[in-house]
């Protein structure tokens, strides 16, 4: 079975401090990994993705993530957060097996940036 775990439901952090949002996954096949951001009352917006190649992936708004296959993790990081980063962040896994696509989202992490 495929699953995604975002252990932290809420992460408070002071402005200009670094942040790491954790994502672990489980799958029996190869996966593609994504991080999305959702601002209140809006749809999700793609932050970054890992499809193949370099395990360090850079995305929009200064975010980056590192794919660690041995630890089955894809943690999201930003060295210095801004107030505008306050939002909910979702990790997602997509796999293709036997012509069937499986998409699994984590339950989300609410990032609250404190001035």
């Amino acid at each position, binding site marked *: 079975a495929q699953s*995604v775990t975002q252990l932290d*439901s809420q992460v408070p952090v002071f402005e200009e401090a670094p942040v790491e949002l954790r994502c672990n996954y489980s799958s029996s096949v190869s996966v593609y990994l*994504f991080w*999305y951001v959702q601002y209140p009352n*809006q*749809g*999700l*917006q*793609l932050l970054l*993705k890992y499809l193949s190649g370099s395990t360090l992936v850079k995305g929009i708004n200064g975010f980056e993530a590192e794919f660690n296959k041995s630890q089955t993790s894809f943690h999201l990081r930003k060295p210095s957060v801004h107030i505008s980063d306050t939002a909910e962040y*979702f990790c*997602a896994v997509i796999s293709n097996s036997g012509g*069937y*696509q499986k*998409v*699994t*989202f*984590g*339950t*989300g992490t609410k990032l609250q940036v404190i001035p």
Partner: protein
Amino acid sequence: NAGVTQTPKFRILKIGQSMTLQCTQDMNHNYMYWYRQDPGMGLKLIYYSVGAGITDKGEVPNGYNVSRSTTEDFPLRLELAAPSQTSVYFCASGNEQFFGPGTRLTVL
């Protein structure tokens, strides 16, 4: 490019009523998806489509139906609305999943 558009933005249904949530994309994507989002639960995939005429069930398809007659449109049909279908519904398209703004549905 309008991207992914969804209508309506809000809707209140009575139990047993039916409705169709519309989703249109103008990016010529083959893949399209329907999700529901409930508080604290993340997004659950209802149905997806890999191209016109081809649809498949996701994780939570019960109570819903879809069709994909064109590349652009991927409507989601609720035949007999139930309170458990109160949720926010998102449509997405493309391998990277560009999301629409969502439809907030309440079933009373």
